[in-house]
């Protein structure tokens, strides 16, 4: 087994434990990512590393690879649900009796693709009653064949948001060279380079402030949808091998995190059902991560600005896995409202709400400063050696090679 480097103190720095204890005693200096960057501009890295303990980051955007699992408790007589629906949206029930998983992008059986699992998750968070229907084969131990009832977060036994890939570290931007409007998960892309969309909170984004995952790891306590949650694993499609700047900032989608938290703590301000026309449903989710400033390297990492973070604008008119790159741009350029693509001025739109990302960083700062939110040291670091394998059609022999 590969030996992992613990995220502990460096020779010249502060230890994670010291920072966490100081924060719990209300003595830590906590700044939002916005404040910290300003502090570094004025005072420099050395002073920032010495004086600041924790930087709070935030992001709010469409996070498709999300969902929630529910345990409903047992009916009388009991049922082993084989198929289940929450407000008409199919939930996966193949985990014994009364546990189901509702995916954010799951759609209802009608073909309008407007309403999905994400909207039901938001309804739960808003305290609304949700209709639960389930059918079963009926067994001697679970005799009931069907159930049709209402549940809400008040009545439900457990409701847990568990997302396999959130908080992407950098993301691709999109535009469209074709002659027709494209409806994509990157929004409505107007014909003939009519617009470009991008989806990252850039300099506020958690993993862009900790590009080599020194402090964000398995077990990190995070702000999740308005409540508290944890990083539980590397996110799916975790891909560390992409090109990076000398400071380690990836120029393409790289890391991501899998997260989990109690849905009962969350609020609809940070958990929103979204609809992308002709793509379907997805979950608008707010995540915030505190980053301890262990040493000057961490201070340097958190000083990153939109000018230092770049991504590529891909042509979504090409329906292939490897879409052609139209332009390399920084988030400062994207955020200016216009970018240059092949000599044309193309208006840009973010898909990620900087307004909400800032709010999350503020809320997290306040709750750390009050001692309500305890900053935790990861129990294991995220990997630095993961690649992203594609899915190709092959026969059984090829698949085993």
């Amino acid at each position, binding site marked *: 087994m590969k030996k992992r480097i613990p995220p502990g103190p460096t020779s010249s720095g502060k230890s994670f434990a010291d920072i966490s204890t100081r924060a719990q005693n209300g003595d830590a200096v906590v700044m939002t990512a916005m404040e910290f960057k300003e502090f570094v501009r004025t005072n420099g890295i050395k002073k920032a590393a010495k004086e600041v303990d924790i930087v709070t980051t935030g992001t*709010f*955007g*469409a996070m498709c690879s999300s969902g929630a699992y529910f345990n409903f408790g047992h009916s009388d007589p009991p049922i082993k649900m084989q198929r289940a629906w929450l407000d008409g949206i199919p939930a996966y029930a193949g985990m014994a009796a009364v546990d189901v998983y509702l995916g954010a992008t799951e759609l209802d059986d009608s073909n309008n693709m407007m309403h999905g699992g994400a909207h039901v998750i938001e309804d739960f968070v808003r305290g609304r009653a949700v209709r639960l229907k389930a059918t079963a084969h009926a067994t001697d131990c679970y005799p009931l064949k069907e159930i049709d009832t209402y549940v809400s977060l008040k009545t439900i036994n457990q409701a847990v948001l568990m997302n396999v890939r959130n908080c992407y570290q950098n993301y691709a931007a999109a535009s469209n060279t074709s002659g027709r409007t494209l409806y994509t998960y990157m*929004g*409505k892309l*107007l014909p003939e380079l*009519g*617009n*470009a*969309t991008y989806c990252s909170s850039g300099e506020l984004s958690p993993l862009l402030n900790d590009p080599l995952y020194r402090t964000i790891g398995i077990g990190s306590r995070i702000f999740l949808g308005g409540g508290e949650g944890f990083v539980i694993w590397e996110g799916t499609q975790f891909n560390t091998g992409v090109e990076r700047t000398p400071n380690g900032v990836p120029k393409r989608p790289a890391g991501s995190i899998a997260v989990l938290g109690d849905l009962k703590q969350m609020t609809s301000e940070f958990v*929103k*059902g*979204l*609809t*992308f*026309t002709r793509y379907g449903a*997805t979950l*608008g989710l707010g995540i915030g991560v505190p980053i301890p400033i262990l040493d000057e390297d961490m201070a340097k990492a958190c000083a990153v600005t939109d000018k230092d973070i770049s991504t590529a604008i891909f042509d979504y008119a090409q329906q292939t896995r490897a879409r052609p790159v139209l332009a390399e741009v920084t988030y400062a350029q994207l955020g200016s*409202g216009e970018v240059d693509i092949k000599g044309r001025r193309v*208006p*840009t*739109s*973010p*898909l*990620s*709400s*900087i*307004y*909400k990302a*800032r709010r999350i960083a503020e809320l997290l700062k306040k709750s750390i400063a009050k001692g309500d939110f305890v900053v935790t040291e990861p129990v294991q670091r995220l990997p630095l050696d993961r690649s992203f394998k594609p899915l190709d059609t092959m026969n059984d022999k090829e698949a085993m090679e």
Partner: protein
Amino acid sequence: MKTKLVLNFNPEASNLPITHNLTAKYGLLVNILRAEIDEVGGKMVIEVSGKAESIKNGIDYLKEAGVGVRPIKEGVRRDDDACTHCGVCISICPTKALSLDRETRKVIFTEEKCVACGVCIDACPPRAMEILI
């Protein structure tokens, strides 16, 4: 002055050159914001500019010609609770009625600039925009 009007036509009125007449006879500038026609008649959303008196006379002419006239104050409404201020709408709005405040990073909706074209409606992920005409 300027005003926005919703015009409803029966099939007979659909054949009249009403926008031409508003300009030629009443000296009004007419900007067609939306126009649609089907088997039961047609609907048009226009913005007319001119003297108050001319606009009044123009509206009287339309009514006499059998055209239903309804002035509108707002064509599109935003649900402020639903809006997440992501900004996906700003690059598709042709009149820049939707824009991003560079300071607060909130999406600003300037109703006076809105021509109720409706392109933002299905582009808004939280479905915060509603067309009223």
